[in-house]
């Protein structure tokens, strides 16, 4: 009746138990606070059932931040093991736990931190940037968020009930097949990603349609902010790459449940096909992560240089080139698997080619700064940190694009340093830049600059200390994912430096947490207006807080950076606003319901509780059918209410 679930599934080792207790206490504290302050109804009606992309965006960011803390905790354990115990007698982290920790670390950081931050910022900013009130499919947007949460719940549930995968963040077969991973670990990994992946796919469709069809009249493609272009590239990649992941995860799951032989090492299965397919998705995935970060920098650099972006057209072409080329390089992740010289040469060349448009973008940002009046506020500092770290990462990437060189460093710490360079220097720094840049828009107060700068320097120095030694270690022969090594190799010193680097990063995180807390406490002193940075794009033309409907009227735009033109050119008049009633989607619990059922489906399949999985699946189908047939899904905001809101929020009479 309960499949393979039993009391054995509860954790046995002290570290996992500690983690579960810690996480559990945090969750209980949250529940207690909500109960004490009687905020359950508020949470449900104002946030969890909201279809407002601004609210959904914030929720994505909250989840991503919490998962960042878990991912960093995992990183701490890995560094501790490698710096302190690996050269000696073992330490408290068993080899099996170590493997679960690095698998969880990678999976969480990529799928729940980076993707979560990405969708959070996209939800918050894209509708405002194109001058629209909402996304194309608001209910689908909510469902996407809740599927993301469902995946997050499953991967954290693996801590408490059962185990996690030991097969790394990509679960290569044959290790991930039943023969070598008979437990629930790989299944947790599969279903967490499968469910979150469907959420991502639906969001990809949603945002592409939004950008294609809901731009302000007059906003042609070449007048959109570059951030929106970067989202077009990103979502095109999501739409065309994620189905490959869905198919591949399904096939691995079929191998593990009904006895198919796609990737097994017997009966004709071919594990190499898994690696081929997973990277055909995996390479576009890393471009999915970085393109919005590029977009964020394209917004920040012009504003903090008081100069328009250099080379708008070449930026667009570069983005589109990167989007297309992402699909032509995937074999560089497995040069060493044995496809031979011709195949390796083709993909090596394509990998070098894709570096070119990225270089174009970096030069354009620098040329934007040249002869601008540059202000080094925290967002701009994150950009400078990005230029330094991402360039190092890019150089090592082009180095590894040469198959002969890659044969030396593949799967060594050199590789690990390279991709952390790209993801931390690119995606994470971009995320922090976006956070500090757009924070005042949504909250009405700045984040404390001094603490922000301290956080930045800790992250930058910490990052360099944590990862530059890894390049050296990689050249010295250190493989990735090692939980022990011979003390006589002399590696421990560099591992200790890397560990210190992580501690400095954690100090940076501490400064960020304090910064947020302190800024909230001192929000009256730190209060700013609706346009604190003298922005260029439409979001800065709204009030703070932004009205639920974003814009009172959808007046046509004429220029790129329309808001900037309205502010700084006397011959550009603000258009007359025509106020009409606005239709807004009603709140609904459908998204949350589907999220809950998704967790149950996943849990049921993982533990082989088939009746439960089937029942939850049928339930979700029924909910979807009912939701698509519902008529009364919108609410009208009347003209009087709009006029009153505009007076209150913007102090204008419309």
């Amino acid at each position, binding site marked *: 009746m309960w499949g393979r679930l039993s009391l054995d599934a509860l954790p046995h080792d002290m570290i996992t138990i500690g983690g579960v207790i810690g996480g559990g206490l945090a969750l209980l504290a949250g529940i207690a606070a909500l109960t004490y302050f009687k905020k359950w109804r508020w949470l449900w009606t104002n946030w969890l059932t909201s279809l407002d992309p601004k609210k959904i965006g914030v929720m994505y960011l909250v989840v991503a931040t919490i998962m960042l803390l878990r991912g960093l905790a995992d990183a701490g354990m890995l560094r501790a093991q490698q710096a302190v115990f690996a050269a000696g007698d073992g330490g408290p982290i068993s080899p099996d736990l170590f493997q679960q920790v690095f698998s969880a670390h990678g999976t969480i950081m990529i799928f729940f931190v980076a993707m979560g931050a990405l969708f959070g910022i996209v939800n918050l900013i894209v509708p405002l940037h194109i001058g629209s009130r909402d996304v194309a499919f608001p209910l689908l947007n909510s469902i996407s968020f809740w599927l993301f949460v469902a995946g997050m719940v499953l991967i954290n549930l693996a801590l408490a009930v059962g185990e996690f995968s030991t097969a790394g963040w990509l679960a290569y077969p044959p290790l991930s097949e039943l023969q070598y991973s008979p437990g629930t670990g790989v299944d947790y990994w599969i279903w967490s990603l499968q469910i979150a992946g469907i959420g991502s796919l639906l969001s*990809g*469709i949603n945002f592409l349609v939004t950008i294609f069809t809901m731009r302000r009249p007059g906003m042609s493609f070449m007048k959109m902010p570059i951030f929106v272009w970067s989202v077009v590239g990103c979502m095109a990649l999501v739409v065309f790459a994620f*189905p490959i992941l869905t198919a591949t995860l*399904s096939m691995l799951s*079929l191998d593990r449940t009904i006895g198919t032989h*796609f990737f*097994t090492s017997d009966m*004709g299965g071919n594990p190499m096909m898994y690696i081929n397919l997973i990277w055909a998705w995996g390479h576009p995935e890393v471009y999915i992560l970085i393109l919005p970060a590029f977009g964020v920098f394209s917004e920040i650099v012009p504003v903090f240089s008081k100069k328009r972006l250099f080379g708008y057209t070449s930026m667009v072409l570069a983005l589109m080139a990167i989007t297309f080329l992402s699909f032509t390089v995937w074999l560089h992740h497995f040069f060493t698997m044995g496809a031979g010289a011709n195949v390796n040469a083709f993909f090596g060349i394509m990998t070098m080619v894709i570096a070119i448009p990225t270089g174009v973008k970096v030069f354009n940002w620098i040329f934007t700064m040249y002869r601008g009046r540059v202000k080094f506020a925290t967002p701009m500092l994150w950009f400078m940190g990005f230029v330094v770290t991402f360039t190092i990462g890019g150089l090592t990437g082009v180095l590894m694009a040469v198959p002969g060189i890659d044969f030396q460093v593949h799967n060594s710490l050199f590789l690990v340093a390279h991709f952390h360079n790209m993801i931390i220097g690119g995606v994470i720094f971009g995320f922090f830049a976006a956070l500090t840049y757009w924070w005042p828009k949504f909250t009405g107060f700045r984040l404390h600059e001094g603490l922000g700068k301290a956080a930045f320097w800790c992250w930058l120095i910490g990052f360099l200390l944590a990862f530059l030694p890894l390049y050296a270690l990689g050249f010295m022969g250190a493989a990735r994912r090692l939980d022990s090594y011979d003390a006589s190799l002399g590696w421990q010193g560099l591992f200790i430096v890397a560990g210190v680097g992580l501690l400095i990063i954690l100090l940076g995180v501490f400064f960020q947490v304090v910064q947020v807390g302190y800024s909230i406490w001192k929000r009256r002193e730190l209060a700013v207006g609706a346009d604190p940075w003298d922005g260029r794009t439409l979001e800065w033309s709204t009030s703070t807080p932004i009205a639920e409907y974003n814009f009172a009227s959808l007046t046509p735009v004429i220029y790129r950076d329309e808001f900037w033109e309205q502010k700084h050119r006397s011959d550009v008049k603000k258009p007359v606003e025509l106020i009409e009633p606005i239709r807004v989607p009603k709140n609904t619990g459908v998204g949350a319901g589907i999220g809950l059922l998704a967790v149950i489906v996943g849990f049921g399949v993982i533990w082989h509780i088939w009746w439960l999985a089937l029942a939850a699946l049928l339930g979700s189908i029924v909910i979807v059918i009912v939701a698509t047939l519902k008529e009364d899904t919108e609410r009208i905001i009347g003209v009087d209410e709009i006029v009153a809101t505009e007076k209150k929020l913007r102090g204008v009479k419309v």
Partner: protein
Amino acid sequence: MSKPRLLEQKFLDYKTSTGFWLYLMTDCVLFASLFATYIVLHPATAGGPTSGEIFSLPMALTETIILLTSSFTCGLALLALRQNNLKQLVIWLAVTYVLGVSFLTIELSEFAALVGDGHSWQQSAFLSGFFTLVGTHGFHIFIGLLWLLVMVAVLFKKGITLKVKRQLGLFGLFWHFLDLVWVFIFTVVYLMGVAS
């Protein structure tokens, strides 16, 4: 209906069909991954039967003609919908449904026969690929038939509303798309499976 509402409805139609088309594009990539896997694993018969030994071309042709006809009758249904002819619409949708069910029945009987002979997906990588590729298509057909039933139920309850019109349009796209995928399954799995 007022002009602004009409324009709003047209815009909703446009947004929805664009979004659904994009979803179909993602389904194409999903099927492409399964096709690629099927082709790569096609020779891996692990001592079990090869494609030439287990596929019946006449049966596959029958399935193909049934599905093609159902795609045609679905088109006729959409034409009746445009003319606001509820009776014709329901008739053609019913014919489409019957043809779809026939298709699935034949397919399931093929699967059952193979499994009964001991040639299930567990026997070899080739068979795994076959059952998954063809089975995924069959599952899509099943969802389509379920969708069709819901649509007919709504038609009986509410007649032809703008919302139903929009949703039937999407169903049409879905059903045509599934026939298109089948053309490739017929070609790559059955025809090439017997030819090589």
